[in-house]
Structure formats: structure tokens, C-alpha cells
């Protein structure tokens, strides 16, 4: 091994703590890249593989009742490669041992052979026999209830309770993310999908020779808007509700959302770490080279080229980078696997493709090494530039500015020791500024992690406690006359009931359009309310639409605009309506109307799609029993249960996220504060030892150094709050989707907590350095040449 490399190795071993501190910061950057991009790729690949192998549809459409004879014309549409005509209905599931009813979907499968689109992965069991009451059950629901082939369950289908036998447990590309009506997060216990042979279902729903749902697979070259137009033209006479692409399919949209978030994580977080590590490398290398100034001169004197010396120090940088890259890659790999496996559990995939892409590690490694080299560039350039005769001489004493000397009042208020600290701080303003910035990143990261808790509890507060305050929503099997409200009131345990009508529409303004549902809210409604942008309840005006901010943004609408409304459940008939208000909504694409206004728009008289109810919780079992046996009720959404479930899920996620981010913030704070304290100590050891010799106590001497740190950490707080505010804002924007938005709320306590954590870690690193100050060997320090 060349002698210079031995020197390198010994230098590295001597500075192991500082090198490790920097390498860990760098490792965080590498790990986030590897984890998030790795998980992104795995999830993306797994999804595409599942989609491909199980022939997931590209176009989805619904109708009231259309004849199977449409199969021919539908298949002949240009670009269509396969068509599956299905019967799909909402049902209520009655599970033994569970008081509340579960929501469900039943979907037909061919009597023999597999579906041509949306094939099922058979996890266990055998395909159901059409001659018996047999079904296949979606794996998530089956595992939640520990069902196996042979288990039995009751389902209320078309008003009649049927006892069904499970013969197969399956997975479907259509329900990778299976979420029930009214739920914001999946609850596999309360939402299930059943598959039944077509001939058996035809009888149950009186759908012989007919279908109400179609899944279409298209060729890669197909123009989807054309396919959708053609499908709509054919289905409109049969109550077609408008064909949609995958982007509007719930499971797919949720997965997309998850992928977007992973990508956001991969692009936002690593740069922060790489920036901080570049700065840290710069800081310690500048100091190291300053200390080795004479050695550099010697090496030049004996004939080493500037390049050889620069390369020597660059190699030290690369050693740091290598440690960071190795630690980051290994932990990133483990975390990525863990994360993908978590996805595998959360989403239902039959298999996981964990892509080990070498390029990812190569990119992460190169990016980190380059960041480190950029950080060390200035320090190394200084070495190259120094003429050997100059390098051999000790550097001239640092020139301090006589800061504060012109301000007598202020200077008198400070001790000479504080003045020393302040002058030192101001002597290297850029370094002080960068140290402050680095520390503030830690504060910002913590705020970014913690604010989501504020935002989401605010969201729960507004969504659940101010807008959707009902305990449950009963959805009728088909629209009913207003007297259904009275019937609902008579159900056991119902204390208050408010009817509503909902219908599928497409809103159009110029070339922009969006498919969504209009829901009515009566002016005197108290359970469900609409809030304006200041969170004050607003009553629906007798005419016009109240649209949420998100819809307004998508369609470019403002109050007073008149837009087209295509009524999908009524043959796509087009009407016009004006925008009367823009309102608050965090979930879905909300559009509200006065009941009379919607009835007028549809023109078939007053109708109700369902009722929202407030419940007497002591009588829940009776209500549940009644719901399970009431044919008119097609589905039930239990907001009370959803609320709890949502809180639990979010709590879990936030706990994980907060611990990860806190760990990252700890690493950054420690890396920055510890390193800068160590460097200051090395720069000022002589000075501090002199003070000790002069008779200052250990505490006073430490104070000189720690005052400076304290100032930096204090300045980093407001900066960190500002940065954290900015990061959080970009997170809110990044998470915004049609499914939900997060309100941008940061509580004061969040700022405080973030600062508290950072200050605590800074104190800890200060204490470690303080112990070194206490152990300063006075005689030795004073004898060495600075």
C-alpha cells in the first residue's frame, strides 16, 4: 500500500467519529433514494405484472340492464381486444360473530373457464359450481374473517338472505386496494368482494341474458377517448352511466396516489441530506487541510505533484462517501424490502416483484460521491493553489473584526468571553450561516413529519365532526319516494334521519370535463352539512351547484359560471346548471345541490337515494339486524366505524413516519452540531487552553465554544420553522389528488416540539464536546505549534 494511502487510513481512523457522523447523514440520502425509488419500482413492476398476467381492464362502464347481444358490437370497437360482460351489484354481508353488517360487491364470473378480462388469481380452493350456492371470496376479506374453502357466509342479495359456501379464496387486479363505501382507508373486515358464476347470479338478480357492468381490455395502440365514446354510444340506451379509464378506477387510483407519494419522497428528501453532507465534508476537510498545511507544503517540497496531493484528500472524501454509500445502500435495501412487503400486505398482490436494480445503487453512489467531492472541492483547491514555500510556514494569525466595539452599551453588556464567541462567529459568516442552515434542515424535517398529524386531525375534525356527522349512511337498492325517509325513521335505534339523493354526472365546461356524483343536502340538514371556505355552514341555495375547491380548480370554475351537466343514470341527458358557491371539501370530488334543485334537474319527481342517520348506540345490534333483513336497503356505510378505523390507520402511519423522520433529524442535527463543535475545538484548543491557564474555569471556557453553538442553534429555529412550513406546503400540494386533499395546518405545538427535539440533540452533542474540553491537556496543547 502506498505510504500516502496509509496516512489516509490513519487519518480516517483518527477522525472516525466525525467521518461516521457525516457518512450517516449521507447514508440517509442514499437510503431514501434506494428505499423510495426501490419501493416505487417494485410496486410499479408488481402492479404491471399483475395487471398483465391477469388481464386488468383498461375501460370500465356500467349500465342499468343491457342485453348480452352487445358483446359482438362492443368487441368490434376499434382497439378493443377483450370484453367481459358482468353482473355486479352491491350487497350486504352478514358475518357470523360480527354485529355490524359488512358492505360487499358481488360480481359474476363465467360458469366455465376464466374471465377474459380481470382474471382472478386462485390463492386456494376450487372454482365455484354454478349449480350450487358457491362463491369465491376476495382474499383480504377472507383473511380478516379467517375464512377458508368450505366456510359459509350469508349475504343479503336483492332483498333475500342467502347462505353461500366459499370454495375459493382469490385475488383480483381490480381490488388490489379494496375500499368500501364511505370508508377513507381500507377495512378488510367490513368490505368484501364475492365472485359467483353467472348462471347463479342471473337468477338472484333477475338478469338472465343481461349485464350491468362491462370491463374492456384494449390494445396498446387504442385511442381510449374514442373507445369510451363508442362504448357510451352503445350503452346509453340501456342506462349506461358513462365509461371511464383506469385513472377513475378506485383501486388503481389509490395505487397511483401511493406511487406519486413515493416518487415525491425520492425527489424531495435525498437532496437535503446530500446538501448537508456536502457542507459537512467541506467543513471537516477545510479544517483538516488547514491543520495539515505544513505537511502539504512538505509533500510539495519533496516532489509530490499538486494533483497527487489533491487526489490524496479527494480519496479521504471518497472514503467518507464510501462508508455513507455502503451503510445507505444496505439499510436502503432492507428498508425497501420491508416497505415493499408492507405494501404487499396492505395491497393485495399475489406476488411481489422486488427489483434489485444495480443502476439505482450506482446512481445513488455517484450522486453522493459527487456531492461529497463538490463539498470538498474548495478545500482541495486551496491545497493545489498553495505554493510550497508558503504552505510550509504557519498561517498568519486570523484577522478578527472589532465587532461591537463601536456599540459601547452592547459591548459592555457582554463579557470578554462572550465577545470572543461572537467575534469568532462573525469571522466565518458563511460557515456560521451554513451550520445554521444545516441545523434548520433538521427542524424542518421534523415539522414536515409532525405537521401531517395536525393536518389530519383537522381534517377529521372538519370532515367528520362538522360536515359528515352521521353515524351511518343507508343506501337504497334503487331510488325511492320521499316516504322512505319515514320508514327509515322507524328502524330501531334511529334518532334522526335525513334523506339525500345522489346521481352520477359528467360536468363540462368548455373542453374540460369530470365525472363525479352530485349529492343533495337539505337546507335544514344537520347531520351532513356543507361548509364554506371559512368553515361556516352554508345552506344549499334553491338553484345551482355548490362545488368544492378541487372541482373548481379542475374545471376552472368560478361562482356564476353556467356549465353542462350530463345525467349518466338518465341516458346521458344534458342539462345546464350554474355554480352558486364554492365550498370546502377534503375528500373526493364533492358537488352538492338543494334536493328540489336536483329533482328539478332530473325531472322525475322527488326521489331519495338513501338516508343519513344518527344512531342510539345502545340499539346498534337491533338496527344491524334490521338492515340485514330489509330488502330495500342495498348498502350501509358506517361512518362511526370508518372514523375509528381512519384514526387508527393514520395514527399507525404517523407513528411510523414520525419515528423515521425523527431518526433522520437526529442524524442531521448530530452530524452538523457535533462536527462543527469538534472543528471549533480543534481550531481553538490553544485559545481555550490559554484561558484555562489564565485561571478561567472549565465551565467558563466551555462557555466560549458553546455560546457560539447556542447562537447557531437558536438562529436555526426560526429558519427551520420557515423551511418546515415550505416543505410541508409542498407535501400538501404533492399529496393532492382526486381522492383526497390534506388541509395545510401546522399547530404551534408542532413547531415547539420540532425545536425541542433539535435543541435536545444539540445539547447532547455539546455535552460530548464539553467532556473533551474538560479533558484538554493544557501543557501539550500549548506546546504544539498551531
Amino acid at each position: 500500500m502506498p505510504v500516502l494511502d496509509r496516512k489516509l487510513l490513519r487519518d480516517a481512523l483518527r477522525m472516525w467519529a466525525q467521518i461516521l457522523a457525516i457518512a450517516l447523514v449521507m447514508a440517509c440520502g442514499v437510503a431514501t433514494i434506494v428505499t423510495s425509488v426501490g419501493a416505487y419500482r417494485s410496486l410499479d413492476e408488481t402492479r404491471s405484472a399483475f395487471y398483465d398476467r391477469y388481464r386488468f381492464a383498461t375501460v370500465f362502464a356500467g349500465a342499468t340492464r343491457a342485453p348480452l347481444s352487445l358483446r359482438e358490437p362492443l368487441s368490434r370497437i376499434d382497439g378493443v381486444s377483450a370484453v367481459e360482460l358482468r353482473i355486479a351489484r352491491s350487497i350486504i354481508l352478514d358475518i357470523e360473530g360480527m354485529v355490524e353488517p359488512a358492505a360487499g360487491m358481488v360480481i359474476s364470473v363465467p360458469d366455465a373457464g376464466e374471465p377474459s378480462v380481470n382474471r382472478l388469481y386462485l390463492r386456494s380452493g376450487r372454482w365455484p359450481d354454478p349449480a350450487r350456492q358457491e362463491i369465491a371470496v376476495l382474499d383480504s376479506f377472507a383473511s380478516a374473517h379467517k375464512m377458508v374453502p368450505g366456510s359459509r357466509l350469508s349475504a343479503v342479495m336483492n332483498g333475500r338472505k342467502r347462505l353461500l359456501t366459499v370454495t375459493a379464496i382469490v385475488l383480483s387486479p381490480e381490488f388490489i386496494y379494496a375500499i368500501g363505501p364511505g370508508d377513507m382507508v381500507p377495512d378488510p373486515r367490513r368490505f368484501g368482494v364475492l365472485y359467483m358464476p353467472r348462471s347463479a347470479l342471473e337468477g338472484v338478480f333477475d338478469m338472465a341474458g343481461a349485464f350491468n357492468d362491462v370491463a374492456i381490455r384494449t390494445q396498446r395502440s387504442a385511442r381510449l377517448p374514442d373507445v369510451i365514446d363508442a362504448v357510451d354510444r352503445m350503452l346509453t340506451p340501456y342506462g349506461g352511466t358513462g365509461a371511464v379509464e383506469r385513472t377513475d378506477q378506485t383501486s388503481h387510483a389509490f395505487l397511483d396516489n401511493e406511487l406519486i407519494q413515493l416518487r415525491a419522497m425520492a425527489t424531495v428528501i435525498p437532496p437535503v441530506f446530500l446538501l448537508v453532507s456536502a457542507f459537512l465534508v467541506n467543513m471537516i476537510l477545510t479544517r483538516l487541510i488547514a491543520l495539515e498545511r505544513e505537511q502539504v507544503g512538505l509533500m510539495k517540497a519533496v516532489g509530490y505533484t499538486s494533483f497527487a496531493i489533491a487526489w490524496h484528500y479527494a480519496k479521504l472524501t471518497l472514503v467518507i462517501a464510501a462508508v455513507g454509500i455502503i451503510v445507505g445502500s444496505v439499510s436502503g435495501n432492507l428498508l425497501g424490502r420491508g416497505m415493499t412487503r408492507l405494501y404487499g400486505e396492505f395491497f393485495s398482490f399475489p406476488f411481489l416483484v422486488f427489483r434489485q436494480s444495480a443502476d439505482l445503487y450506482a446512481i445513488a453512489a455517484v450522486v453522493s460521491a459527487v456531492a461529497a467531492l463538490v463539498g470538498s472541492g474548495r478545500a482541495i483547491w486551496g491545497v493545489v493553489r498553495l505554493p510550497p514555500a508558503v504552505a510550509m510556514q504557519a498561517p498568519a494569525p486570523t484577522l478578527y473584526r472589532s465587532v461591537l466595539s463601536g456599540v459601547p452599551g452592547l459591548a459592555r453588556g457582554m463579557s470578554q468571553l462572550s465577545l470572543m464567541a461572537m467575534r469568532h462567529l462573525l469571522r466565518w459568516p458563511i460557515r456560521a450561516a451554513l451550520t445554521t442552515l444545516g441545523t434548520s434542515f433538521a427542524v424542518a424535517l421534523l415539522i414536515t413529519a409532525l405537521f401531517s398529524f395536525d393536518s389530519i386531525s383537522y381534517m377529521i375534525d372538519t370532515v367528520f365532526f362538522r360536515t359528515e356527522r352521521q353515524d351511518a349512511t343507508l343506501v337504497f337498492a334503487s331510488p325511492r319516494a320521499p316516504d322512505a325517509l319515514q320508514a327509515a325513521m322507524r328502524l330501531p335505534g334511529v334518532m334522526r334521519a335525513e334523506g339525500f339523493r345522489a346521481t352520477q354526472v359528467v360536468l363540462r365546461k368548455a373542453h374540460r370535463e369530470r365525472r363525479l356524483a352530485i349529492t343533495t343536502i337539505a337546507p335544514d340538514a344537520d347531520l351532513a352539512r356543507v361548509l364554506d371556505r371559512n368553515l361556516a355552514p352554508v345552506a344549499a341555495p334553491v338553484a345551482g351547484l355548490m362545488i368544492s375547491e378541487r372541482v373548481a380548480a379542475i374545471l376552472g370554475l368560478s361562482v356564476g359560471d353556467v356549465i353542462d351537466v350530463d345525467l349518466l343514470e338518465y341516458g346521458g341527458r344534458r342539462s345546464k346548471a350554474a355554480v352558486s358557491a364554492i365550498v370546502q371539501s377534503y375528500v373526493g370530488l364533492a358537488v352538492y345541490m338543494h334536493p328540489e334543485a336536483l329533482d328539478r334537474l332530473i325531472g322525475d319527481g322527488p326521489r331519495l337515494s338513501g338516508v343519513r342517520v344518527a344512531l342510539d348506540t345502545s340499539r346498534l345490534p337491533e338496527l344491524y339486524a334490521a338492515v340485514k333483513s330489509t330488502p330495500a336497503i342495498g348498502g350501509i356505510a358506517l361512518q362511526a366505524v370508518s372514523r375509528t378505523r381512519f384514526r387508527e390507520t393514520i395514527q399507525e402511519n404517523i407513528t411510523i413516519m414520525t419515528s423515521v423522520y425523527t431518526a433522520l433529524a437526529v442524524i442531521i442535527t448530530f452530524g452538523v452540531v457535533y462536527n462543527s463543535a469538534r472543528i471549533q475545538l480543534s481550531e481553538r484548543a490553544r485559545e481555550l487552553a490559554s484561558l484555562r491557564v489564565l485561571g478561567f474555569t472549565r465551565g467558563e471556557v466551555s462557555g466560549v465554544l458553546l455560546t457560539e453553538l447556542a447562537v447557531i442553534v437558536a438562529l436555526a429555529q426560526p429558519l427551520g420553522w420557515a423551511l418546515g412550513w415550505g416543505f410541508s406546503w409542498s407535501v400538501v400540494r404533492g399529496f393532492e389528488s382526486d381522492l383526497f386533499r390534506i388541509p395545510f395546518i401546522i399547530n404551534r405545538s408542532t413547531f415547539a416540539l420540532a425545536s425541542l427535539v433539535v435543541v435536545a440533540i444539540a445539547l447532547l452533542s455539546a455535552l460530548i464536546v464539553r467532556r473533551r474540553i474538560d479533558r484538554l491537556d493544557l501543557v501539550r496543547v500549548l506546546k504544539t505549534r498551531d
Partner: protein
Amino acid sequence: MNERILHAKQLTKIYRSGEVDVFALRGVDLELFRGEMTVLLGPSGSGKSTLLNILGGLDQATSGQAWFGDLELTACSERQLTRFRRDHVGFVFQFYNLIPSLTAWENVALVTEIAPDPMPPEEALAMVGLQNRMGHFPAQLSGGEQQRVAIARAIAKRPDVMLCDEPTGALDSSTGVLVLEALSRINRELGTTMAIITHNAIIRQIADRVVSFRDGAIVETSRNAKRLQPSEVSW
């Protein structure tokens, strides 16, 4: 003995310090001959170190010329000067300038690794009497031992000329004598041309020739009729 190895013509060096120009060298002419031991004598600040730095390719002259044989050092690029130092010059400094994280042997190897025709580090260390201290780090060696490691490092490359700047400056008399003995022995046995800077007039007695400096100029050049052994001097 009369081959001229290094020579300077009208060398001038001006340092700009704040707003005043400091003349470190004022038109110095000097010749060093192969195999000769020359002592450059003068008080501190008289310009001898500056001259040695320029002759050794460590510094640039403001005007005038310096030659190593046929190579005009004052016209060389940084790269050529590095080459020159690497191949032809051995330096010894007052504060030894050893790399603290390398052992004695490694400090010598630092140079032998890049020299074209080096002697083994252990041989160089043996010449300065440190064959038993090769594995020690600088912090584990006395000042005299450290300086002898520096000398071993300088001779290991078999330089044409050794430039020693106050090699005994930081040492007491008896330790200084040991160092001078090492230098003297190398001059004798290897025939290495040697220039020793000192402000200690006693050391002049061990040289072939003495050049005295004052205020950036040479005030006197004399030749010793008899060279004393380092062991015969003390201060």
C-alpha cells in the same frame, strides 16, 4: 570538484507586505559546486532561506536567474519545478516537517516511492543511525531523532543536492552535533552536494566554504583551510 551544480545570477526577491516592499534578496550571485559542503551564514531575515527556497524550486524569484546545471529554474513551470524537486533535491527543515501519522520508515518511503532511483528506506535510516527506530511515529522520537528521520528522507532519493534550512535550529548542542555528523557523513560517503543554512557561526567550521549574508545580500565568501569534524565543535 569544480563542477558547478547550482548557481544564481542577480537573484532578487521582493515580498509585498501591506504597503511596503520588503527586499528579501537584493541581486545575489552564488555558485554551489558538486560534492562541496557550503554553509550559508547570517542572522535571521538576511535572505538565506529565501535564496535556498528559490534554488530548491520552492519559491519564485522576482528577478534574476537560477540554474541547476543547464536547467534554468527561474524559467521553469510549476510542473517542471515539481519534477526538479522530486528528482534532484533533498530538503531538511528546522522543524523536521515529518508527517505525524506516518512512522519513521514510512516518512522515508513517502519519498522513495516517487523517486526514480532511491535507496531502500531502511538503508537511509541506517545511515543516520536509526535502524532500530524505524517503526516509531514522530511523536515517539526525540527532536534529534526526528531531524535524522528528515535527513534520511532527504538522502533516500540520492539527491544531487541537499538543502538544509537550520537543521540544528531546534536542537541542543549535543543533539545538533549528532545531526551534523549525519550530514557530514553523507557528504563524505555519497559525495552529495550540501548547503546548510544556519545563524550559528560555530557551524561554519565544518564546511568547505562559508557564505555570509546580511540584509538580503552576500557580504563575504570564504573557504576553510581545514574542515572540522562535527564532533570537534560545540555551542
